C-alpha cells in the first residue's frame, strides 16, 4: 500500500512538472521521474514472479535509456535550429485546440 501510494504521489508530481515545464530539460526530468514511479510500482511483482519482474525492470531501464538518448538528441537539435530549448520553440507535433 505504501509503495503504491508513493508511486502514485511521484507520478502526480511528475505529471504536474511536465505540464508546468517551460523548457525541454524540465520535461526530460519529469519523464525520468515517471520512470522512477514505474520502478516503484513493479516492486510487488517481485513477490509473485521474480524472474518476470526482473525482466520488466530491465525493459524499463532500457526504455528509459532510449528515451534519454532520443530526448537529448531532440534538445541538441532544437538548440541548433531555434537557438532555444523553450517549449514554445517546438512548433510541430501535439494537438491543437480549435
Amino acid at each position, binding site marked *: 500500500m505504501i509503495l503504491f501510494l508513493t508511486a502514485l504521489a511521484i507520478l502526480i508530481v511528475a505529471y504536474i512538472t511536465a505540464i*508546468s515545464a517551460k523548457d525541454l530539460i524540465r520535461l526530460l526530468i519529469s519523464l525520468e521521474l515517471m520512470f*522512477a514511479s514505474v520502478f516503484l510500482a513493479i516492486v510487488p511483482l517481485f513477490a509473485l514472479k521474480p524472474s518476470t519482474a526482473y525482466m520488466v525492470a530491465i525493459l524499463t531501464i532500457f526504455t528509459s535509456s532510449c528515451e534519454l538518448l532520443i530526448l537529448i538528441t531532440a534538445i541538441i*537539435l532544437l538548440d541548433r535550429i531555434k537557438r532555444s530549448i523553450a517549449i514554445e520553440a517546438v512548433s510541430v507535433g501535439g494537438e491543437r485546440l480549435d
Partner: protein
Amino acid sequence: MNYELAILSAVSIFAVLTALGVLLSKDNFYSALYMATTMLLVAAIYALYNLQPVVVLLVLVFVGAVSIVTVALAATYRTAPARKVNIFWSIPAIIIFAIAYLSYFSLDELNVSTEFSSVPTDYFNAIVILFSLIAIVAIAAVKIARRVEL
C-alpha cells in the same frame, strides 16, 4: 509498526519530498539533483526488500548514467546564475561516504539472491532484442543529428 515498515515509510516520504523538490525548484540543475536523489531513494526501497541485483542495475544505469547525464545536461543549459557553494558542505558528504564505506566492508558476507540466475537464459531473445534496439536508437540519433542542416 515494526522497524522495517517504519524505514520503508521514512524512505517513501523522503522520495516524495525530493520529487516535490523537482517541482518546486526553479533551477533545472537543482531539479535534476532532486530527481537523482529520488531515483537513489527508489533504489533504497529495492534494497530494503533485499533485491540486490535490481539495486545494482538501478544505481548503475538509472542513477549512475541516466541521472548524471540529465544533471550534466541541466548544468550545460543552465540559465539561472550559479550559487557559490560553501566548502563546509563537503564535511557531511565525507562523513556519509565514510559511514557507507565502513558499513559495506563490515559485512561478513553478502546474501545475494540467486533467484534471477535463470533470467539471461529464459529471456535471452528479449535481452538480445533490447541490446539491438538500443544500438539502433543510438545509430539513429547520430544519423538524425548529422542530417540536420545548421
